[in-house]
């Protein structure tokens, strides 16, 4: 980037261009997005698209083309007011292109028609918030391009930390050749999909010595295109989406088109898209917590803002009137000309400009947009109240509620959780313009204005059922244990006795939901248990595969345990899970059950012994526990009963489990808790009977006092 190497002119010879896609068809923010496109919604009191534009400006982009559709005028007028397209702006050209097409593919083809994009350009979405520097990616792209005409595209991806937030609804899997960052395969894995595996073309394997298969990448769809890409889109008129269709198939038939697509992975920068309300929420928080520095409120990037920050991420504009007894909690943002009355508490919320907030109002983790009036004694929690609304006295807005522009809620009304109020609806005719709704007093109370939003029938089909709408919802149906990637059937063994959503929540901590639920420690303990379990199982399975000595495995386990303070039970569960997984994999590879079992158990009896501490004791809790775990684990597996028999037998032979242990297990009602477990243990019956007949025991304490 140093200047000396470059005359300023050539910026004008080949200016860096960019395309912003402001996707029109948008239901997740409904009814908020009825009259305004999503890219103009306020996030932390600034329209989304401004972040995107600043992002491009900071990358040195000179020409910007904004693809709009229904809301062409709105976008243009915004550019006008925000001074983006006056002649002093950073962009020497900024232009709105109206496109009727509903899909990315369509837009791309239109762009190709339009033919303004002569040289490499950046493609982003109008809801992108990011502070990552494109420079490296751009120059790398440029380099490759010069080297190889077919290097047509570079995707800029961000590494998510573990349990990152922006990863909830999509789990893209990129297969990348680490040597040249080339992306050789892409698969889109949404969590609700049942099958969790990537199918690789075998040829890849000998084309590339090593490949990274990464599911930890956050894809904000920041791409660097060469004009050829547009051509490619045009050639394949059936492509709709940029990833599932375009990327996937271009990579797939590399043989045909010979086009190469590359990735650029950044680690410690922020990039996210406000695709749904929960992301909207997390991003707002991220901005307030300055993750997106320098895109922080108090940097007042956009003209006319003058936020100041005080301790604890409290942002106030110059002219905010607060009563003496009014408390402003941390992570709060309040716009100009807003006043808050006595005894009012505002925590972790964003309040827009010109709002009037009465006395004794509580606003918690909520988003109040401009010009809204909130009367005395109302409580608002984890909700969005759009522009120009009125909330009456002593109202309660329950978590997840969505109140669209202009709605008026009468006094003493309770707005139900996750209800979405609006006061306009789209006309039935296809004119696309709006008409006021008939007020439903049940919802907004007598004297209120507005009603529950009902998605238009023609939108329904586009609603992706699996996708969450509200700010608050149960994530459990979306979650998947990290392990379930490697080996689906095991994901049960966690879920069986721990609800992963519990654990998951913590990892999504920071999102609104977590605030609601995280305070109970049980959840967090389970979280750490899950963590331990997955970790341990992973460790053990591959050391089993590697055939490590059980000593090392034990040490690994204990060290892991020291970190998570997992219970002995957890230890056993981990061991059982991994062992059984190993066995069943052996079996599925055609090994006989018997040999599979012995080969797995025998070398590691020490390990098992170390985790059974009740040899002397009369009641063999641990052994019973072990067996129960076996039972439950195997109940999910192919011919589990046979394996169970083998395993128990093996265990008895190795004196890992004593006859009493078996006996107590057999008589334990938990072992007949459910139908299939009972079925499972049938095969083992004769063994048990045999054992119970002659309970001959020989003493042996194997490393017993390893216990802690």
């Amino acid at each position, binding site marked *: 980037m140093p200047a000396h190497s470059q005359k300023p002119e050539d910026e004008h010879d080949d200016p860096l261009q960019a395309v912003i896609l402001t996707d029109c068809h948008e239901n997740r923010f409904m009814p908020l997005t009825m009259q305004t496109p999503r890219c103009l919604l306020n996030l932390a009191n600034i329209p989304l698209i401004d972040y995107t534009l600043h992002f491009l400006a900071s990358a040195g982009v000179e020409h910007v083309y904004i693809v709009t559709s229904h809301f062409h005028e709105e976008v243009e007028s915004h550019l006008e007011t925000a001074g983006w397209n006056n002649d002093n702006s950073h962009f020497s050209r900024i232009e709105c292109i109206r496109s009727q097409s509903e899909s990315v593919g369509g837009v791309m083809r239109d762009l190709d028609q339009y033919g303004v994009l002569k040289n490499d350009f950046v493609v982003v979405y109008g809801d992108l918030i990011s502070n990552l520097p494109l420079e490296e990616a751009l120059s790398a792209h440029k380099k490759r391009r010069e080297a190889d005409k077919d290097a047509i595209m570079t995707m800029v991806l961000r590494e998510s930390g573990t349990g990152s937030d922006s990863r909830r609804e999509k789990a893209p899997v990129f297969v990348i050749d680490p040597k040249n960052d080339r992306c050789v395969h892409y698969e889109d894995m949404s969590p609700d999909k049942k099958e969790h595996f990537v199918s690789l073309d075998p040829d890849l394997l000998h084309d590339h010595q090593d490949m990274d298969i990464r599911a930890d990448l956050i894809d904000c769809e920041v791409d660097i295109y060469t004009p050829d890409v547009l051509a490619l889109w045009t050639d394949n008129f059936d492509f709709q989406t940029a990833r599932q269709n375009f990327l996937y198939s271009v990579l797939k038939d590399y043989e045909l088109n010979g086009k190469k697509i590359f990735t650029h992975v950044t680690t410690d920068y922020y990039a996210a898209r406000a695709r749904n309300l929960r992301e909207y929420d997390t991003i707002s928080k991220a901005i307030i917590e300055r993750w997106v520095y320098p895109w922080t409120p108090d940097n007042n990037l956009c003209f006319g803002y003058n936020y100041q920050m005080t301790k604890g991420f409290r942002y106030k504009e110059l002219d905010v009137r607060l009563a003496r007894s009014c408390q402003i909690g941390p992570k709060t943002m309040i716009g100009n000309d807003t006043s808050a009355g006595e005894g009012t508490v505002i925590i972790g919320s964003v309040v827009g400009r010109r709002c009037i907030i009465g006395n004794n109002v509580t606003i918690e983790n909520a988003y109040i947009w401009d010009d809204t009036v909130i009367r005395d004694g109302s409580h608002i929690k984890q909700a969005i109240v759009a522009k120009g609304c009125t909330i009456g006295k002593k109202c309660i807005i329950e978590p997840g509620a969505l109140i669209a522009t202009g709605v008026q809620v009468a006094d003493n009304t309770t707005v139900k959780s996750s209800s979405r109020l609006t006061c306009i609806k789209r006309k039935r005719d296809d004119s696309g313009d709006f008409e006021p709704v008939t007020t439903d007093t049940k919802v907004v109370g007598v004297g209120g204005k507005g009603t529950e939003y009902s998605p238009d029938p023609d939108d329904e089909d586009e609603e992706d059922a699996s996708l969450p709408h509200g700010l608050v919802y149960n994530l459990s149906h979306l979650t998947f244990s990290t392990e379930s990637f490697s080996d689906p059937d095991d994901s049960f063994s966690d879920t069986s006795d721990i609800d992963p959503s519990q654990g998951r929540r*913590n990892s999504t*901590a920071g999102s609104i939901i977590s605030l609601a639920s*995280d*305070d*109970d*420690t049980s959840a*967090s*303990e389970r*979280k*750490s248990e899950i963590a331990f379990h997955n970790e341990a199982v992973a460790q053990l399975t591959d050391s089993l595969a590697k055939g490590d*000595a059980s*000593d*090392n495995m034990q*040490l690994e386990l204990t*060290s892991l345990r*020291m*970190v998570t303070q997992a219970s002995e039970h957890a230890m056993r569960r981990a061991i059982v899970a991994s062992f059984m997984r190993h066995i069943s994999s052996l079996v599925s590879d055609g090994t006989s059950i018997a040999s599979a079992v012995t080969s797995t158990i025998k070398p590691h009896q020490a390990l098992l012994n170390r985790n059974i501490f009740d040899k002397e004791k009369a009641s063999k809790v641990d052994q019973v526990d072990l067996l129960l775990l076996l039972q439950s684990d195997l109940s999910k597996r192919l011919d589990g009963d046979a394996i169970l028999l083998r395993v128990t037998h093996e265990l008895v032979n190795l004196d890992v489990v004593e006859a009493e242990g078996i006996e107590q297990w057999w008589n334990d009602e938990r072992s007949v808790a459910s139908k299939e477990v009972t079925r499972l243990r049938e095969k083992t019956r004769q063994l048990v009977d045999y054992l119970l007949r002659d309970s001959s025991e020989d003493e042996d304490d194997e*490393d017993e*006092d*390893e216990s*802690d």
Partner: protein
Amino acid sequence: MASQPTTSSEAPPSKSSEQSKSAESSAPPAASSSTAPVATATPEAPKLSGAELKKRAKAEKQAKRAAAKAGGQGDGHPEASQPKKDTPQKGSQKKGQQQPRQSAGAQQKGKQQSKGQEAGAVSQAKKEVDIPLRAAPKSTPDNRVFRQFSIYRRTSLENINKDVHPAVLAFGLQLSSYQICGSTARCIGMLKCFKSVIRDYTIPPDNTLARHFIPHCLSAQVEYIKSARPTSIGMGNAIRHLKDAIVKVDPEMPEADAKAHLLEVIDTFINERIRAADTVIVNAAVAKIKDGDIILTYANSSIIKKVLLAAHARGKKFITIVVDSKPLYEGKYLVQDLSNAGLETEYVLVAAIAHVMPRATKVLLGAHAMMADGRLFSRIGTAVVGLAAHERHIPCIVCCESYKFTERVYVDSYAGNELAPSEELLPHDSEREAWRREMEVKPQLQVLNLLYDLTPAEYVDMIVTELGNLPPSSVPAILRMLEGKAA
């Protein structure tokens, strides 16, 4: 240039091991004898010299340790140290090539020689405890810093003493890779390993446990553990405790019983001096936490974690600020665990201490060791935190089990400190590579990665021990008490 360190290094070893702390007669010959070939070997093959150096370094170390150990138990030492002196010699030959692949960032063949050299240079350097005038022009004062400690880190299972028990082997690796970190965890881990060692040990005919076990079995383990990472004071105390017990074992006692007894001894140590102590301390410390407190802590001390979790469990409402720093970033684990447990937490790096300290109401610190004069020996950076707290009159509480107390007294943070490999300070492999290359050719460029520092007693307001809460000044009193108990 490259061979510079070696050439300057003929003389040092012998003189060094003289005044190496508890050195006694038998060590120096051993050391210097092992060095003799090196001196000649060096010039023609720098590659060799690297390996050689390491070898000599190692040999010396062992000799020295042998010496040190000799202090511990009477005779039987010479034959003990004999085998050890040559095993490494053939071994470390290989090690020259070995080293690179082991070292953290995967590196290529190209580096071997230099790698060896670096380690060699340092391990050789560390022997010169004083700065001989002769070396003055070449070595400016600061080199002192380096010459004092061992930077030697075993990262492989190559050529170790055959007597080392597998459990101990694994343990060693976890030490050197920080998988087991924090003095308490290390101490417990070690003792556990010793238990399995004792279990698998059999007294050879016509010998007694008291006389045979330490020199022929235990010492090997200790050596190895030390070679993985210098033992902490707590571990030292534990070892001494064990040795005492062993020496006291009645020769008449049947083997099984004796072993059982020793296991017993270890268990009681773990349970009384560490586990029970912890619970007592936790209770005492929790009592000091009030609602609305803002507790600031540094790095990741196991005991502090227990305290905070316990306090939270007992429904106290407080905020925890975790201050963290290079090289280990342990605080990240702490803060995650706390936050998972539902505590309200904040996280900053130590540089930002001035920003967070004013808000803090109490400072809780863990200890690596307590010096007899009440100074706190703990993770590097602790001193700064202590200072910041002291400046603002914020009470600074140290939680420390009494088994970490030591009669030793240091005046500055150099004494008794541990120097970790400099790579750990450098983020990327590429950068490590660049620095390593640079540091070879430019001896005046160094990266200093100390692991501990010494906090002046006046920065500490209270020490919570299982024997009660006490001011730093009464640490020696406690020590006396403990001596009394032991005797």
